[in-house]
């Protein structure tokens, strides 16, 4: 077995000879999101974070689907592919599976990833292709001007749902853990430090990393995540997930109850009763349970890395099979192939 299987996600990506900075990753294209869009903050966070990976710029690729967030690759001075609606994980799978020397990033939104592209997302996650999927979740369709999305809350009044939406939203984290993704995290556009720390872990993870980024659409769904930004309440509702640390907010704590996890006033429990977070737990059940704590929405919201486990990546396993076939039988020879069956000679 190839020794990169249990290594880190960037082992095969060549390192830059020179020290690159944020400006090296800014393309010459004018950024065309609405003023005040959360995408700006994420773009700036990514552009200022990627130099520290120390990779060659030309070995980074950003692939996107369709939607506001999917314009992202145009603004990164790397290789980029702005593709079609929902298909970015599939396109990126072909690229990453055939080019282990690339750091491949998928930029997608809640509609792109969870509605039209839901199938590709779950299959990328179960395969564990070496990709980093950044899912910008603004809980609304922006580019088509304001219809409800698969993460909008029930009853959402939008242009397409004047009497309120009827369908229950997806919880992207639950969905990803259900698909047994090997790396699942949630962060928020306004907290650059946290966002960058999650991206760092995601980039180095071997396999598919799914990062849900709460992102504000100030035109069609403004203040969707206001509780998490409001200094009055945010520290009380944010459950910080840190490996090896108790899971708690300023005023609440998570503990194992008789019917699963429960959130209780922090003062009501002893410190040793508080659940200690273990991102490497191979059983996804506890991570899934954590993802359900955000129900009802925004009463308490786990933020951080839910799960990060070692599992061989699809591209590494695929490369192993090619190596194995060549080791066993030697490299392919076309004449041997064509003339190798039952042949006969005439004349």
């Amino acid at each position, binding site marked *: 077995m190839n020794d990169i299987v249990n290594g880190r996600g960037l082992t095969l990506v060549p390192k830059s000879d020179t020290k690159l900075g944020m400006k090296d990753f800014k*393309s010459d*294209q004018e950024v065309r999101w609405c003023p005040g869009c959360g995408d700006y903050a994420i773009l700036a966070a990514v552009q200022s974070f990627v130099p520290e990976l120390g990779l*060659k*710029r*030309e*070995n*980074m*690729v950003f*692939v996107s689907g369709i939607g506001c967030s999917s314009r992202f*690759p*145009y603004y*990164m*001075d*790397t*290789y*980029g*592919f*702005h*593709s*079609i609606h929902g*298909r970015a994980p*599939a*396109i*990126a*799978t*072909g*690229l*990453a*599976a*055939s*080019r282990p*020397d*690339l750091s491949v990033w998928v930029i997608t939104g809640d509609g792109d990833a969870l509605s039209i592209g839901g*199938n*590709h997302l779950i*299959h990328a996650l179960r395969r564990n292709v070496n990709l980093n999927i950044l899912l910008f979740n603004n809980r609304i369709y922006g580019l088509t001007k304001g219809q409800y999305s698969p993460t909008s809350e029930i009853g959402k009044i939008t242009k397409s749902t004047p009497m309120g939406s009827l369908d229950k939203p997806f919880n992207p984290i639950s969905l990803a853990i259900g698909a047994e993704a090997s790396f699942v995290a949630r962060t928020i556009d306004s907290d650059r430090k946290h966002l960058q720390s999650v991206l760092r872990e995601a980039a180095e993870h071997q396999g598919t990393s799914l990062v849900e980024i709460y992102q504000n659409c100030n035109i069609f769904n403004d203040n969707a995540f206001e509780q998490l930004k409001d200094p009055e309440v945010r520290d009380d509702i944010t459950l910080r997930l840190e490996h090896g640390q108790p899971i708690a907010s300023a005023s609440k704590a998570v503990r194992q109850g008789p019917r699963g996890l429960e959130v209780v006033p922090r003062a009501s429990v002893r410190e040793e009763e508080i659940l200690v977070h273990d991102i490497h737990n191979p059983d996804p059940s506890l991570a899934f349970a954590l993802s359900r704590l955000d129900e009802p929405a925004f009463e308490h919201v786990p933020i951080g890395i839910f799960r990060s486990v070692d599992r061989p990546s699809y591209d590494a396993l*695929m490369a192993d*099979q*090619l190596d*194995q*076939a*060549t080791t*066993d*039988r*030697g*490299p*392919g020879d*076309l*004449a041997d*192939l*064509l*003339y190798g*069956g*039952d*042949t*006969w*000679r*005439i*004349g």
Partner: protein
Amino acid sequence: MAKQVQQLDRVIIRFAGDSGDGMQLTGDRFTAETAEFGNDLSTLPNFPAEIRAPAGTLPGVSSFQLHFADHDILTPGDAPNVLVAMNPAALKANLGDLPRGADIIANTDEFTKRNLSKVGYSVSPIDDDSLSEWRVHAVPLTSLTVRALDGLGISKKDAERAKNMFALGLLSWLYHRPTEATIKFLESKFAKKPDIAKANIVAFQAGWNYGETTESFSVSYEIKPARLAPGIYRNISGNQALAYGLIAASVQSKLPLFLGSYPITPASDILHELSKHKRFGIRTFQAEDEIAGVAAALGASFGGALGVTTTSGPGVLLKAETVGLAVATELPLILVDVQRAGPSTGMPTKTEQTDLLMAMFGRNGESPVPIVAPSTPSDCFHSAIEAARIAVKYRTPVILLSDGYLANGSEPWQLPDVADLPDISTEFASGPNDGENFLPFKRDPATLARPWAVPGTAGLEHRIGGIEKADGTGNISYDPNNHDLMVRLRQAKIDGVDVPDLEVDDPDGDARVLVLGWGSTYGPIAAAARRVRRAGGKVAQAHLRHLNPLPANTGEVLRSYDKVLLPEINLGQLALLLRARFLVDIISYNRVRGLPFKAEELAGVIQDVIESE
């Protein structure tokens, strides 16, 4: 007992039975023996989509037809000389195709009251005189097999299952086929079950011996090897040839092959075959759906691989959006469409030529795509290389239109010298192409192809996508004149693809009627043209391999005949294109039965057109 040996120049045999009776395997083995013997041959497997349809019923009948001869032949034959009917359903389903005087070898053990009533026979047709027009050989295949295997210690069920090998042995005796390879084949196929291997071999030999000793067969037949062009031959099906062609395309282009595919009849065998050849650096990706198959292939192409996706009609529809993206981003991509009967699910195991207009126009916007169509099973090899050549040279998706008839049919293939295969390699962009800048959409003036700059190349970082791009820079552009220019440039690039001229076969040079075809109709059309000529008729024949762009001389060829006849297994799709493009009247002949044309049928149609002059 000395038996008479009769010389024949050609024979058509059809093996027919339940879909669980192993008729495809029996046919394959007889084909392999025939190929080894050196006859020319052509095969037509015909089977239901259901894996095991209800036993003994008409929908459950599976058949395999083989035409072999001492001269070169072009089709699997119109009407069988011999029908092997393993049960009443197989007899009933195939009797209509059987000319008077043909031989019927019927497995009488299966002609039970129950089996007869399943297909509406109240009396066994073997017992009354309803088969008097044919020569019936009533052979209790099942019980003879069971008796032959007595003492081997295998179950009755396993013994009965070997009856197809008994039939194969009998037919092998009847036509003097070599048997060693079949014995070796059975040994290796059942290597893990030596008792089953033994049972099948004994059944096979018992069938041979039965032929030699029984009174039912007083004559056996010899068909001398065919005098084909000197060379080394192997038997090959269209799907296998296509897979080998893709491997050759990878070797000849020096690009690693990436296949993204989703299983679909009748294309899956290409995925199966390619997945066996990983030591050629081939990556096969069984995707979650048709869309992901083509999307992954396009992603791999972006990374510098030869991206390929294989499917059939329903899958082509699902892939259309990604093919459009490949048109817009101008990346190489090969889409193999093994056409089958539609619309919708249609008849998955039956053949058709009904996807031509979809291949031409089945995308939004002005979205031209080159189309290549192989004409015979072995031509699938060369057509795959040709599709890859165009894709790589012009940075474009190419659609390769095979069909179910080519995919599953087989023929002897004169193997090419690998050294003679075309070099289809290309160069990736390696540096700036506009002063110090790199313009991802600056075109090669000769081909109008854009540079292929793959990730990992320093200094050429760029972004591509489905949004309209400014000429040269590739930046997003909504400029009206730029869009008009780009639409025309993409069209001009495809119109300018270099394709060889259309060749016309007209032995005397004075025919006034041209019969034109494309794709898998080549064999029946050519066989029909031969018949017409043998009968003194004059007909020219031409066959299109490139359907987009058409060869430059197409219009000239069409206009130089009084009449142009175009048989198609659709309702006139190519005829529509040719009429529109060249304002030439075309006489369409269309049958959409899920089966290839018969040579006799087409010969009659050609004759009618000649006589109507």
